[in-house]
């Protein structure tokens, strides 16, 4: 079934008031992803003011613990809502997936582990690789916007790939962080809209 048809159906069912209690968390995430993908399709005129304004919301999310904790300035990930250094000090390693007996997936399972402050899960849990650390921690809005838009600093992504990245499974995991962790400061759909607007309006960086 074409994607837009699914989306329209979802809106129709929402109007009937039967959606709220029938979807699981993951399904809800997929629903917000759908909204985000729809936003990606909307035309946005290139405009620096619009772009910079949208980036203000992007920045709020990327600097929240759910995003920044895995984009640390050092080689040890951060942890918790106060972004302290990860207990046990696991190291980034060459591929971003840890070292020796301290690889991310040794504790981080494919899904969240039940219980308060237990390891959150994702099949692809990792930091950025050592060759391109994609640091968020400590970056100003200007620095972060420049970094994100530069394929030499953003993991080799062109603008189209950058747009798609809003729906990356590991990005989405930020909105399903496990018990005891706060969510990013806006919904994923709102974030995706801001992300898309920032990029489509020109991916401008705020003034330094």
């Amino acid at each position, binding site marked *: 079934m074409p994607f837009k048809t699914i989306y329209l159906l979802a809106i129709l069912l929402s109007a009937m008031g039967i959606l709220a209690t029938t979807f699981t968390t993951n399904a809800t995430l997929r629903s917000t992803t759908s909204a985000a993908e729809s936003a990606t399709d909307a035309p946005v005129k290139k405009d620096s003011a619009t772009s910079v304004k949208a980036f203000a919301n992007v920045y709020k999310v990327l600097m929240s613990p759910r995003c920044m904790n895995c984009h640390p300035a050092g080689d040890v990930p951060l942890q918790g809502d106060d972004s302290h250094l990860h*207990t*046990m*000090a*696991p*190291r980034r390693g060459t591929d971003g997936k840890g*070292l*020796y*007996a*301290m*690889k991310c*997936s*040794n*504790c981080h*399972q*494919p899904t969240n*582990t039940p*219980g308060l*402050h*237990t*390891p959150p899960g994702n099949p692809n849990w990792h930091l950025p690789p050592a060759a391109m650390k994609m640091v968020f921690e400590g970056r100003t809005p200007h620095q972060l916007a420049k970094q994100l838009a530069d394929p030499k600093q953003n993991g080799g992504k062109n603008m189209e790939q950058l747009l798609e990245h809003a729906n990356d499974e590991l990005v989405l995991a930020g909105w399903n962080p496990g018990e005891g962790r706060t969510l990013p400061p806006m919904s994923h759909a709102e974030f995706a809209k801001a992300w898309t607007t920032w990029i489509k309006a020109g991916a401008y960086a705020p003034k330094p």
Partner: protein
Amino acid sequence: MAIIKCNINGREQSLDVDPQMPLLWAIRDVVGLKGTKYGCGVAQCGACTVHLNGEAVRSCVTKVSRISGQKVVTIEGLSANNDHPVQRAWQEIDVPQCGYCHSGQIMSAAVLLRENPNPTDEDIDTAMAGNICRCGTYLRIRKAIHLAAGMDRKVGRNE
């Protein structure tokens, strides 16, 4: 309940368990291998470390469903006669005090030496930081790993 087929210590197993069951439960209570210990239950201490396809996973938070079709090695299967270099070094240095954490310590050390045959003190500290020892045997652990690094590694059945 479901049948989970896997290989534990070189033997094919069919475990009739809840797929959500922690691997540690299955190893100890279903298969009957008691060498792997329960410590914290939330992947914080490392006492329950086993090898899953060669990686040092925490069995207390690893669901049995994750090991379906995979290869698990516990402390009992690390070598045929307790003669893995890490085990020999552990005995020679007499590393343990109470011993509770040491099956996990040894399983983590074995992964370190496989990937880094001649680790520095810093490498050892990095690799072993997730294995807590309340008796504080860390200096002997480090010494034993250096000793094991110099031993013949052509032993060990399932590593």
